[in-house]
């Protein structure tokens, strides 16, 4: 009776279908040609309509034969590089770090278009096994080099029982309109402790997609931080699953968005077992005519009693044309839990501005000071002075980019 309208495909979608066919992945090509890329009608892409936002799809990446300067240097870090999807040979690994590679993606099967595409495209995965206490931070430096390219990369991190480590992932590359689709699967063993930071520093014209899956075993502790400081269009997805009791995670994120950009952080935390806690703190800051998106969801499964989850989103708008969109969701099936969420959104406090300016601090400087104060909460808990400094450098670089 009712007709279903055939999906009209955009040029980006058509190119994508061709690429998937050339990779021999008919199933994925079929899926895209039937449904297209997700529009705002797909609830998880409500604010990030990929069909309209993704204007062009560059050709599939060829092996990289040159390298741009590293986007972020973390002094004392052990560096691993993935260029155009291929794992590069690295120096001698520090004690407790085992570096291997395997074929295909590291992600599990999940009904999400970016996960599907990574699965179809990623040829190689960097596998890290971490044992004991790893002294230096590990940097996974993901690059897309050369002319504009569509590239996928993948990494799998296994933190052994009782191990402790810090990983910083950076995404960058040559100045071109790349489309990057990066994946990480991170598993924490019993009582393991991990700090995992992902910083996007892609070129201004680029599109950055990343998906991180966490699996937390008994008693493990995770601190996760996502920073968006690059790309014209960015979407970082974080999917976490608590699989063992007594685990705790802090999920944090900083979404800095400039004129003309659209950046989205999407979080889905699943408390599958009792006695697990999580704290989600996300900050968004937007200037110019830009769009900052945060979608967060905490799911507490039927028998996961005594779960504690607190989600907070704070947005700061530095211009009138900016948009901050947020959707902090709770989905609770257990009756003995404490879950809360909060969301605030506004501009710089005029009273504080007046206070600073009345003490002779110029307007622009006063704004930077207040914004710095607003963001400090996220960087402060990171261990390691040099790492913190590097991250502060990223924020500072963005702030100096000009506040009206």
């Amino acid at each position, binding site marked *: 009776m009712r007709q279903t309208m055939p999906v009209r495909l955009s040029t980006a979608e058509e190119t994508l279908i061709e690429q998937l066919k050339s990779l021999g992945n008919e199933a994925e090509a079929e899926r895209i040609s039937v449904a297209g890329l997700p529009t705002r009608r797909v609830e998880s892409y409500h604010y990030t309509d990929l069909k309209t936002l993704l204007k062009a799809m560059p050709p599939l990446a060829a092996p990289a034969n040159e390298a741009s300067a590293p986007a972020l240097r973390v002094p004392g870090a052990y560096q691993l590089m993935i260029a155009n999807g291929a794992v590069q040979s690295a120096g001698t690994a520090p004690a407790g770090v085992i570096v291997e590679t395997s074929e295909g993606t590291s992600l599990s099967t999940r009904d999400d278009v970016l996960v599907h595409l990574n699965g179809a495209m990623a040829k190689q995965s960097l596998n890290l096994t971490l044992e004991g206490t790893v002294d230096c931070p590990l940097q996974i430096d993901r690059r897309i080099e050369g002319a504009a390219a569509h590239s996928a990369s993948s990494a799998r991190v296994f933190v052994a029982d009782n191990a402790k480590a810090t990983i910083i992932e950076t995404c960058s590359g040559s100045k071109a309109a790349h489309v990057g689709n990066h994946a990480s699967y991170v598993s924490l063993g019993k009582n393991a402790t991990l700090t995992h930071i992902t910083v996007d520093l892609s070129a201004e014209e680029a599109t950055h997609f990343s998906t991180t899956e966490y699996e937390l075993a008994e008693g493990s502790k995770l601190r996760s931080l996502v920073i968006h400081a690059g790309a014209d269009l960015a979407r970082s997805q974080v999917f976490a699953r608590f699989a063992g009791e007594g685990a705790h995670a802090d999920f944090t994120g900083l979404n800095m968005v400039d004129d003309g950009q659209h950046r989205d952080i999407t979080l889905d935390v699943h408390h599958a077992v009792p006695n697990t806690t999580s704290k989600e703190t996300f900050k968004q800051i937007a200037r110019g005519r830009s769009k900052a998106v945060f979608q967060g969801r905490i799911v507490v499964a039927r028998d996961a009693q005594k779960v504690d989850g607190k989600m907070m989103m704070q947005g700061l708008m530095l211009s009138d044309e900016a948009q*901050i969109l947020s959707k902090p969701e709770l989905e609770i099936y257990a009756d003995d839990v404490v879950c809360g969420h*909060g969301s605030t959104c506004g501009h710089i406090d005029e009273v504080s501005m007046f206070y600073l300016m009345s003490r002779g601090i110029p307007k622009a400087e006063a704004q930077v000071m207040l914004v710095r104060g607003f963001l400090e909460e996220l960087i402060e808990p990171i261990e390691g002075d040099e790492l913190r400094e590097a991250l502060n450098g990223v924020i500072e670089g963005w702030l100096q980019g000009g506040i009206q």
Partner: protein
Amino acid sequence: MAMLDTPTLKENIDQETVDKVRALDVDKYKYGFETLIESDVAPKGLNEDIVRMISAKKEEPEWMLEWRLEAFRRWQTMEEPSWAKVSYPKIDFQEISYYAAPKTTAGPKSLAEVDPELLATYEKLGIPLKEQEILAGVEGATGETATPYGGNVAVDAVFDSVSVVTTFREELAKHGIIFCSISEAVREHPELVKKYLGSVVPVTDNYYATLNSAVFTDGSFVFIPKGVRCPMELSTYFRINEKNTGQFERTLIIAEEESYVSYLEGCTAPMRDENQLHAAVVELVALDDAEIKYSTVQNWYPGDKNGKGGIYNFVTKRGDCRGHRSKISWTQVETGSAITWKYPSCILRGDESRGEFYSIAISNGHQQIDSGTKMRHLGKNTTSRIISKGIAAGFSDNTYRGLVSAHAKAKGARNFTQCDSLLIGDKCGAHTVPYIESHNSSAVFEHEATTSKISDDQMFYCQQRGLSEEEAVALIVNGFVRDVLQQLPMEFMVETQKLISISLEGSVG
């Protein structure tokens, strides 16, 4: 076997709260009787002929029929929305009859002409239709059951697809107020209906609103002229009686400059094994300095203990604060329906207009509620406030879904949202899905969903006066809940008082 599946309760929930929610459980539904009355029922199915038939039954002018047909054609191209957190078997829209009317209601001019069987039904429901007696102050005229309808309330009684009687019409007419069924309004005040119908909820708004636009049968029409403060509460009581029918009510309330009206809505249905559809559209228009207060006690049949039967309640309610400094306030107490899909919204178009939403949603048995509000800030210095309390028990799912958005031109927009949920038992679910969209930097939005957000100052003040922490919290939260309930008109207090003391212990965001 059902006994084995009984949810277990955790200990720290206040027993009183549990008892009060149980008293509202699905098997305690007291309005489930059926009135045996001869009815005119349209054949099952939906096509252009049915739309024409409904229009003809209502003796509508040509333009109204065209309007309906256009909506119907549009509806055929639309798809059922699937984003809400509810699940139900696919509705066969051809298995429903779209019109049912008691045979004897061919336009009664006065109460004396209304079928006594119908009057008895309303008496049983506790709805006062005996206006003379009420006016004369006869004791017991308001019926024996404790209901929200006491005192001086003008009632429009809608039975299946038709309005059977509207009381106090002359009294209200003295003030220039028009209060009648929408079918009458289409015939008698076409200029007003033409101007406002579909101006808040466009024909193409959503699947169920479009369906309603094609086949709506009855509902109320209220017009409050400039500067008039409506002297009594206006009310519509909806009753579904006939089998295999759907009810498609349409309500339109217009408050001209500087006027005020408080409107109540109530609804019940008999207990039946099959699901029945209720897809309503309510439109409110408030011009400069006008205020509309809209309260609902939604008590449709929720289905039995095993989730069989019950009403599917898919409703589009929207108020348009069209004038400066206008105010629209929604208050709802949701206890019925198998499925509730309802988002009373405010479009804050006029500068300094205000929208409010107060809700208590209680789900039991196998009920599914996906309800909330939308506050769209378009004008300068507009303010809105959302207070929502969801209580889930039994095997039910209770979702709050709300949107707050500020347009780029809505300078100084301000919103405060608070939503709390309480789970009673371990087989139910409570969910919160807020959408917060800020498009300009001077808008300030706050959303919170924890009881721990009570200000430290208040806690300190109470505690240094010797109250324990718990007592202090109870005192502050109580004051806060009372604040919500004060938004209800006096007549509703009786019904909702049962819920007032529900404690927030063990509540989650």
